[in-house]
Every structure is written in C-alpha cells, then in structure tokens.
C-alpha cells in the first residue's frame, strides 16, 4: 500500500554515516510510540541503533508544561554503536514545552523541527516562555524548520470524516512521516504496523497523517534533500530489535527451558520492572506461572516457596522492592535454595527518580541484608545482554542453591538495540538433578537424608522437593547443624556455617570466566565498568584510541564473586578509573578488596554517561 507515497526521484539522498534524532512532545502526544516506530523501521532497514526513552514519572503531568515532556532519542548508524548518542543532531519538538525542555541537548546548528501550531500565547505561557522563541531570534543558532503539524494533520484526516479534535491525536504520525522521508526510511513496515495496531477511524487517521507528513517533506522545499544512513556492517545473522526488559523476560523463559524447570514469577508492579511481569504473563504455554502478589515481600516469598517446591523461582523489582524483599533473600541464603532476584535499578533513595536511571543498588545487593549473608550478583551491560546474563544468573542460582541478585537499570530496561539471535543449541544446559535418594548412613547403619550434606566441590546442598518419598525434611531460618540440617545454636557450628555460606559464594570464582581486557592491553590507564555504562565507555574508549590515547577497559558481568584474577589485572595499570551511575560503589569495593587506588567517576543525574563526559575524564587522567 505504498501507492499513495510520492515516489522519491527528484532529490537524491545524501549519505551520512549516523544520525541522532530526538522526538519530544507532551506525554499525551505519543512520542514513545513515534520513536519506537522510527527505530523499528531503521532496524528492519539494517542500521545499528540504540534508543533512550526519557519520560516523566507522572502518568499525565499537566499538558503543555515542561514537567509533562516525554522524549525518545534514537541513534541510527551504518556502523557498530552502543550509545543513543550524546547530543541529537535533530530535535522534533511537538510543542513549546518540548522545545524548552530539550533544546539544550541539540547540537549547535542542529536541525530543529517544530510544530508551529503549538506556539500560541497559551502554549508559551504554560511552557514558561515570556517571548515567542520562534520569533525572538533565540533559535538563530539552529536550522529551524516550522511546520504547522496539527493543522496539516487535521486537513489530511478531515476528508475521512475525522473530527479535528480526534485528528489532532494523529499528529505524531505526521512527524513520523516527515522524519521517515528525511532519513529515507521504508514506509511499508510502519503502514503495516498501523494497520495491525489500530482500528477504524483511528487507523485511517494515523495512516493519513503519516502519509501527509511523508509527502509534505517530499513536496515542499523545506529540506534540501533527504539523507540516507546505509545499513550497518553487522555480523551476518538473523536480528531482532529488542529492549532490555523483553530480553530479560525471554532470558527467564529460556532459563526455565534450559533448566528443564517450570518458571514461577512472583512480582509486584514497580517502575521500571513491571514490563517483565507483563511480558512473562504472556508466555504461559512455556509453563511460566506469574503471580502478581499483594506486595513485594509476598512476591519474594511466593518465589521462594515455589523454589522449595522445585520451580525456578523468580522475583522482579526495583530498588525499593529489594529493600522490602531483603528479609526473604536472607532466608533464601540460610535455606540455601535457588532464587533469582531481578533489580531494575532507578534513581533513589525512596521513590527518587522512578522513571530515570541510576545504578546505585550495588551496595544493597552486596550488603543489604542482616547478618553475614553473601550472595552472587550478576549485572547486564546492554539491552540485548540481558538475555544471556539472566541465564547465567539462573545457572548460578540453581547450581549453588543460592539467591542471586541480577542488576539491570532503567536505561537498559527501556533502551533497545539490534540483537543477533543466538544459536539455541549453543545455550548452556543449566539443569541440576533433584535429590531422590538417601545420602547418609546413620551410626546404626540405616540410610537417611541429610538436607545440608554438601557437594564437596560446589558446597551446594542437595535439593529434595516435596513429593519425593522418604526425603521429608524441615528447613528454616534458625541456624542449622551442618549436614543434618537440624536446629543448632552451637557456637562452633554457627561459625562453620557462616564460613561455609561465604566459601560457597567465593567458590563460584572457579566457575566464571577470567577478566577480559578490551581496548589497548598495554595502556597505562584502565577503565573498570559494570552495567549500562558499557555503551558510553565503549564509545569513549574508541574515540580516545583515535585521539592517540590508548585505554584498556574491563567490564564486569559478575560483581560477586569478582573474577579471581581481577586484582592482578587491575594492578598492571597505573590508573584505574571506575565510572558509575552512583557515588562510587564498585570503586569502593575494588579499593577495599585489592588496595588499589582506583578513581571513581560518578554521575547521579538520572541520566546515563555521555561518551564525551567519559572522554573528558580519560583526557584528564591521560598523561
């Protein structure tokens, strides 16, 4: 159905290697949807890309105000990229408030496309402008293009019988059409998607707006010519465009299959983790049970109960939820049962910045329990990485019968990137056998079951699930005698058990890969990263290399235990920089653990690092 799209022949597209587009509008304007569609069309076209949705915490902040601005930034490129771009080269501002909120991000001389219909006196007042920026010369440093998008959309939809008020809601599709032309995106995928997603008049109105925007850009002389971003040279294979939370949910489904266990998710809605609950709730035919619990505590308790009963128990949350689950996680440490705790970090403390990103839960993951209660921690580095990383977290939980905390963050959760689908046969078998036989001979020769008789290698205790004849046993939070699992308050036994639980976690070092040093191995300076800083570090390290500043880079997936050789590796470098979206939590651990004078680079603005920020730090420390 592309016949209504004006054939593009008159103006040749100029080829560029990358572009960063930011769509900004009111929360009700559908900017996330617009950005998402542009992303999908680009993904199908074969560009590498990375997205960054940025939206307010309020569901409906007052319309037209700066607080209500919702933005979506996407970086598309013909080469391998990992960040959503520092400064956008194109800003689409659907109203005055969006211009006010996001103009400072636009690069100098950047292309600024505004919906001129939303710059009436009332709009300016709500946005906090005292004079009209479209007229007062304040935008002179940009390439300003004014388009009355609202009225053009209404004009396009009117012949279909759509009322002007309803037609106005389609104006985001006008903007999408415009940008699709400007960057030579194929139109079919978007039109097909509109047909699937909407019905009746809304569908027609959105189609009309999209095509009107596309044709408007083509026919008018507002833009000299369209641009073309060639497909990226990505490794051959089959790709899909995936967000972090969906990759995580699919990773959990996969972990259940690889473990040959049904998945049980106990969860309570919380931003930015709820999408995992939503996604997993769709996949009941994989044997996935999802239960929306009455609270965070119950969610963890149910997952732990399910683990006791032989399921892969999972609970998903964000920082405040981890705080509430802390007592249950401690019980899981004591019971030595597998439990996967997923924390999608956000700005804290307390409600903090619920829709903004931060990576400040490493401390609570490491230390946020009562008593000596160590547990393994695994962190994802990018949206697509969530899939493999959560399988690894489940593997550790099952093999060592321990709760594992999996750290992602809002930036990874909502960001999207192309993902080369893994070869399913290459995924690890993470299944573990249940105990079905007696494992100990009593003094009188009879055989019996000792629930805390450990595997000498992994130190994991056996996992005998209800329904197994003869192996009935009781476990609990009270200290247990090693071996029998009977209640024991004996001083020496407690000390032994505390050490055993710690040794068990430390022993996982032998089961995780050694440190991989990226970048320049011989550099004097090493960046130590974890989590979503991956993207910015990657871009900064590459740029530094081009500037003749060699930098080495270590990025951690396993945060507890740390890789066995990490201390030795880091000691090779004169300078170790640790960029984190917190006040230096990993940095402090590394300093304490290895007595290395690591330097923290901290950012806590609810925003990811930009590559330029890190590059500046690299320059500063490079001598």
């Amino acid at each position, binding site marked *: 159905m592309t016949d209504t799209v004006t054939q593009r022949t008159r103006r040749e597209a100029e080829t560029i290697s990358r572009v960063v587009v930011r769509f900004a509008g009111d929360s009700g304007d559908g900017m996330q949807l617009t950005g998402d569609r542009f992303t999908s069309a680009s993904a199908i076209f074969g560009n590498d890309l990375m997205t960054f949705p940025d939206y307010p915490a309020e569901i409906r902040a007052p319309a037209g105000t700066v607080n209500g601005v919702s933005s979506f930034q996407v970086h598309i490129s013909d080469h391998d990229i990992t960040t959503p771009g520092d400064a956008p080269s194109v800003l689409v501002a659907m109203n005055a408030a969006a211009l006010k909120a996001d103009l400072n991000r636009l690069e100098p001389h950047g292309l600024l496309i505004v919906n001129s219909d939303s710059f009436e006196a009332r709009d300016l007042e709500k946005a906090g402008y005292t004079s009209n920026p479209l007229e007062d010369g304040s935008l002179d440093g940009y390439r300003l293009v004014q388009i009355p998008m609202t009225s053009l959309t209404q004009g396009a939809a009117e012949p279909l019988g759509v009322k002007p008020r309803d037609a106005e809601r389609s104006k985001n599709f006008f903007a999408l059409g415009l940008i699709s032309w400007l960057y030579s995106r194929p139109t079919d995928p978007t039109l097909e998607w509109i047909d699937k997603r909407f019905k009746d008049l809304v569908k027609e109105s959105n189609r009309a707006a999209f095509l009107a925007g596309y044709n408007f850009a083509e026919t008018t002389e507002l833009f000299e010519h369209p641009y073309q971003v060639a*497909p990226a040279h990505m490794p051959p294979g089959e790709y899909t*465009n995936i967000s972090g939370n969906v990759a995580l949910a699919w990773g959990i489904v996969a972990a259940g299959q690889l473990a040959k266990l049904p998945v049980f998710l106990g969860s309570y809605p919380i931003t930015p983790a709820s999408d995992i609950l939503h996604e997993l709730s769709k996949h009941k035919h994989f044997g996935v049970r999802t239960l929306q619990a009455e609270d965070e505590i119950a969610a963890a308790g149910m997952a732990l109960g399910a683990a006791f009963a032989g399921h892969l128990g999972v609970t998903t949350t964000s920082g405040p939820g981890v705080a509430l689950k802390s007592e249950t996680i401690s019980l899981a440490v004591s019971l030595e049962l597998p439990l996967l705790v997923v924390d999608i970090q956000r700005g804290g403390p307390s409600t903090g910045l619920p829709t903004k990103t931060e990576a400040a839960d490493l401390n609570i993951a490491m230390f946020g329990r009562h008593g000596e209660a160590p547990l393994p921690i695994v962190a994802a580095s990018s949206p697509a990485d969530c899939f493999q990383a959560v399988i690894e977290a489940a593997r550790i939980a099952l093999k060592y019968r321990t709760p594992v905390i999996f750290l992602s963050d809002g930036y990874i959760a909502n960001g999207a990137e192309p993902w080369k689908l893994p070869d399913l046969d290459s995924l690890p078998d993470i299944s573990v056998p249940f105990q079905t036989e007696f494992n100990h001979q009593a003094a009188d020769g009879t055989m019996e079951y000792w629930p805390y008789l450990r595997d000498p290698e992994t130190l994991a205790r056996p996992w005998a699930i209800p329904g197994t004849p003869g192996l009935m046993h009781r476990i609990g939070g009270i200290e247990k005698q090693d071996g029998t699992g009977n209640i024991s308050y004996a001083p020496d036994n407690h000390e032994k058990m505390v050490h055993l639980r710690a040794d068990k976690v430390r022993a996982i070092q032998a089961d995780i890969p050694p440190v991989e040093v990226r970048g320049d191995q011989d550099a004097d300076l090493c960046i130590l990263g974890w989590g979503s800083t991956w993207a910015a570090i990657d871009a900064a390290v590459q740029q530094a290399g081009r500037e003749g500043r060699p930098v080495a880079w270590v990025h951690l997936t396993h945060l507890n235990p740390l890789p066995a050789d990490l201390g030795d590796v880091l000691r090779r470098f004169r300078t170790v920089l640790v960029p984190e979206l917190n006040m230096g939590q990993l940095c402090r651990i590394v300093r304490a653990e290895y007595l290395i004078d690591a330097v923290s680079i901290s950012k806590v603005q609810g925003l990811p690092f930009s590559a330029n920020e890190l590059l500046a730090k690299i320059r500063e420390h490079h001598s």
Partner: protein
Amino acid sequence: MNTPVALTTKKDWMSDQEVRWCPGCGDYGILQAVQQLMPDVGVSPENTVFISGIGCSSRFPYYMNTYGMHSIHGRAPAIATGVAVARPDLDVWVVTGDGDALSIGGNHFIHALRRNVNLTILLFNNRIYGLTKGQYSPTSEAGKVTKSTPFGSLDHPFNPLSVALGAEASFVARTHDLDRKHMMEIFRAAHDHRGASFVEIYQNCNVFNDAAFEEVTGRKVREEMMIDLKHGQPIRFGADGHKGVVMGTDGQLRIVNVADVGEDAILVHDAHREDPGLAMALARLSHSDHESTPFGIFRSIERPDYGTMVGAQLAQVFQQKGPGDLGALLRSNGTWTVAAN
C-alpha cells in the same frame, strides 16, 4: 495424585526432633491432634508440607515428619502460596499465631484467603506474644496489662474470624486445645475443603497468658459457654439445649432461653450460605470471654482454588498456542537478516 496412599500410623507423622514447648503449653494438644489425624486424611507424608512463620506455634513443622519450612515472621501464607500454586498436587498446611498472622503478616493472611489458595491455615490464638516473652498481641483484650502495656493496652483487638470472613474466606472454623476430638473433626473438615481453610484454635499459653479462655472452655463452664455449631441444625447449647440463638427483626443475633421463644424460633445454622453475613454475625455473637462463644464450622462454601485455576489457565493457553517454542518467541517481534559480506 490418584495412586492409593500407603497406610501410615501416627508414628510415621512424628519427626525425631524433641518437642520443646513449655511444659503444659496448649501447643502439645494441637500437635497430638494433628499427628493422630494425619493417617486418616488420605495423604502421604511426602506429599504434605507444613509452612510456618515465627512464634511459639511456628516451631510446629519441626515436629512433623513431612516436608516443612520454618520461615519468616508473618510470611508463611505468602511462601505457602508459592508452594501451593507451583504444586497443586501437594497438601499444604500453614501454622501461625495471633501475632504472626494478624499483626506482622496481616496482609499475606487476608490475600491468601481472598485468593482461596488451597491451604489449611491453623491459627494458634493465645492472645499474647509468647516467644518474645509476654507482650500484648493484636487479639489481646483492651486494657490488658503486659510488659509492653504496664498501664493497660489501648488497642482494640481483632476477632480473627471477623478478619477471615471479611476477606471472604471459603472455610472458617474455631476449635480449642482442650478437646482433641473436636480439633480432629474440625481439622479434618478444614483439610478436606479445597481452597483456603482457616481454623482459629483457642490455645492456652500457660506461661504468659494462662487461663485466657478458661471462662469459655473450662471444663466446668463449657456446657453453658460453648455454642457448638452444626450445619443444618438449630443453634442450641447449655444443659439439655435450653439456650439458643435467634435472629431479631433488626437482624441482630441474640442468645435466648429456648423456653421463652419456642423451638421453631431458634436459628438453624447454615455454613454453606454464599453470603458471609450470617457467619459474621455468629463470629461477633460474643464480645468478651464472659459470653457464650460459638465453635465449629462457621462457613464452608465451594469456590475454585487458586492453584487449580492457575494450572487450568496454563493448560488453556497451552491448548490455544501449543507448547512454547523458544525460537519462535525470539522471532515474535519481527527479524531481519544480515547476509554475509
């Protein structure tokens, strides 16, 4: 699940752990009743799970030769929900106390009841915190002098049955620790009920709240003070059933002399009534320990249990979509192929 269950004796249900409640504690009688009952309820020890929270009563699972977990204060209903929903084939019991279920764990308690998770919940109500050595509990009477309320408690107490009925529990009953036969009868009915069954057990803590229920369940006063509820029968009690319960024109339940109103005026107990109103009125019949108090099954209605429904939904989606295919899932948002070179 349908294979015949091997015959067991009481001994098969007793663990090798030494029972460590205070001598004279009411918990012993309850443990005896459960252990004596279990061989007769048609399940095997390996398919039985006891989950408890924290408190004196919550040591219970250690003494049962079944699967068991002594968990966290207040959280047993949530953990047991995980067990029962993951494994509807298991027979899951929750042992809890007044502080455990109604104070720190109030939220999980009401939600397990409203979801109708297939659990048999035994609440040992001794109206005191025993394990922490004698603070008032959410069921302690107002004015109670304890270590934490030297001038008397100002708290209005919970009636556990009202809470359970307010959550529209499908099975609600009361018994007491001095009558093993009655306990076994009620526990069996609670066990046989599919869904969440709630039993309040008046339990004597002889160390910190001795004789709390003496004025109702004491041997000398029992006949006049305990009202034995039987479904389908007029609610009568006292010597020769000379007292009974009537419903006034104002909807209020009252205790009367049967001779004064005539036998036909006496309320007939209906535990199967869909509306929990009557059960609630019975639960609120007595407001103190000086009034006659109903025992037995207040309410028992049929409602699908949660774990079975979850399983059925899974099966239904499985039927519609076929078995999950990981490869198809990964391609479900559309894919594109990058060719070599």
